[in-house]
């Protein structure tokens, strides 16, 4: 699989090639419409303030994996994913460290039969910084045998008013769907376990945060190491 760097994501439609990995750079852009007519992996690693709307249209027999990592003061991401074709699968991994206020709205529309989606949105709110997650899953009537899984988590490192709104709108009987939401701190038992093996507080938090933010990412080892370095600057 090749890695293709898109230096500038244009506002007009982008058609992805078969079985490629794309690294999106989001400079000077507010809207992007992306047609997925094959299987593809898209990575977005962002350290800037951004306000952006994406629309993904996913065709038949496609697998889209989207890995987004944000670390910035102000993030507004609206992502609409239309799974229009049968037997298509979408995996969305969004991880972020909020340095002030990060807002995510994810709408996944299951518009056909045998479609599946899995969304993992994991955010870390440092100090009194805020994260807001709205994760909506829609299953249109007739989209039978569809499968939706939502995993939404915000880890608080201070006290703040972060929130998660996980919602499922299902207009079909033969569907598997589950959603989960957690807002809170790392568990005392987890910290004790790592401390009891000789890891100090900083090393323990660094491992927990790194695992929490990037374990689910299906990305290259070099990219994982790059993200670990970024995370270590803040923990």
């Amino acid at each position, binding site marked *: 699989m090749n890695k293709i760097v898109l230096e500038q994501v244009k506002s007009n439609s982008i058609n992805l090639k078969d079985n490629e990995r794309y690294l999106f750079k989001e400079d000077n852009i507010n809207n992007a419409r992306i047609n997925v007519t094959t299987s593809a992996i898209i990575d977005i690693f962002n350290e800037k303030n951004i306000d952006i709307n994406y629309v993904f249209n996913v065709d038949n027999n496609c697998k889209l994996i989207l890995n987004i990592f944000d670390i910035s003061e102000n993030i507004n991401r609206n992502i609409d994913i239309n799974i229009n074709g049968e037997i298509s699968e979408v995996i969305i991994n969004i991880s972020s460290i909020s340095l002030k206020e990060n807002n995510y709205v994810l709408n996944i529309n299951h518009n056909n039969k045998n479609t599946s989606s899995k969304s993992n949105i994991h955010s870390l709110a440092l100090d009194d910084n805020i994260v807001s997650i709205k994760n909506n899953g829609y299953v249109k009537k007739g989209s039978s045998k569809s499968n939706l899984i939502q995993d939404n988590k915000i880890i608080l490192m201070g006290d703040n008013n972060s929130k998660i709104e996980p919602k499922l709108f299902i207009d079909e009987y033969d569907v598997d769907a589950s959603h989960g939401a957690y807002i809170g701190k790392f*568990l*005392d*038992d*987890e910290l*004790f*376990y*790592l*401390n*009891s*093996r*000789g*890891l*100090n*507080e900083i*090393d*323990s938090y660094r*491992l*927990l945060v*790194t*695992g*929490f*933010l*990037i*374990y*689910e990412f299906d990305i290259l080892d070099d990219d994982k190491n790059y993200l670990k370095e970024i995370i270590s600057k803040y923990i």
Partner: protein
Amino acid sequence: MLEIKNLYVNVDDKQILKDFNIKINDGEVHALMGPNGTGKSTLSKVILANKKYIIKSGNIYFNNEEITNLSTDEIANKGIFLSNQLPCEIDGVTTADFLRTAVNAKEENVSLYSFIKKIQDATKDLKMDESMIHRSINKGFSGGEKKKNEILQMKVLNPKFIILDEIDSGLDVDSLKIVCENINNYLKENKDASVLIITHYPRILEYIKPDYVHVMNDGTIKKTGTYDLALEIEKNGYETYKNNSASIVSE
């Protein structure tokens, strides 16, 4: 050598340990037995300075150095290891990653090759699937796999004092034999290492022979003896000790 003197411990304002005393010399194996809720697991967590437990008075010494007020990681790095009754599951942190960090915290200049060799040997000895060390810690593991993963960590971290908190729970007969064989081999290779086995049942003591057996109830040791004491408990249960306020020491 671990020594605990006159230890009183509270949890949520409830007294759990009362005037608890024990001395475990290098190379000794001690078993601490008792019914549910007597404070055995509390003791294991207090030794490792778990913040849920408040030491009201008393002292804990390790190799003649007081460790009562040290942090959990400082105590662990002195060579004390707790194999947990219910090992914690941690999403996203692999056993390999965290053990590598733990080894580096303890010893400097451990090469990646030596670390990988050590962890691979340990997985083979414990008949574990090597892929498990690259999965989230204990996530989706069976009860037996979790206990094996605890002993794997023991073998890699090389402690001087080992606390086995109900290591036999959740283990089938074959896995119990493998785990105990690994502990016994570790003790053969590390003659100075000592062990505190916390258990309800004497079954594990058939595999790891204790030098001393202590019966605990109501937050303190009621009787100390040899392996025969464990056999007596197997036969008569703990009822005798439940109403016995005085401590008995027998050799």
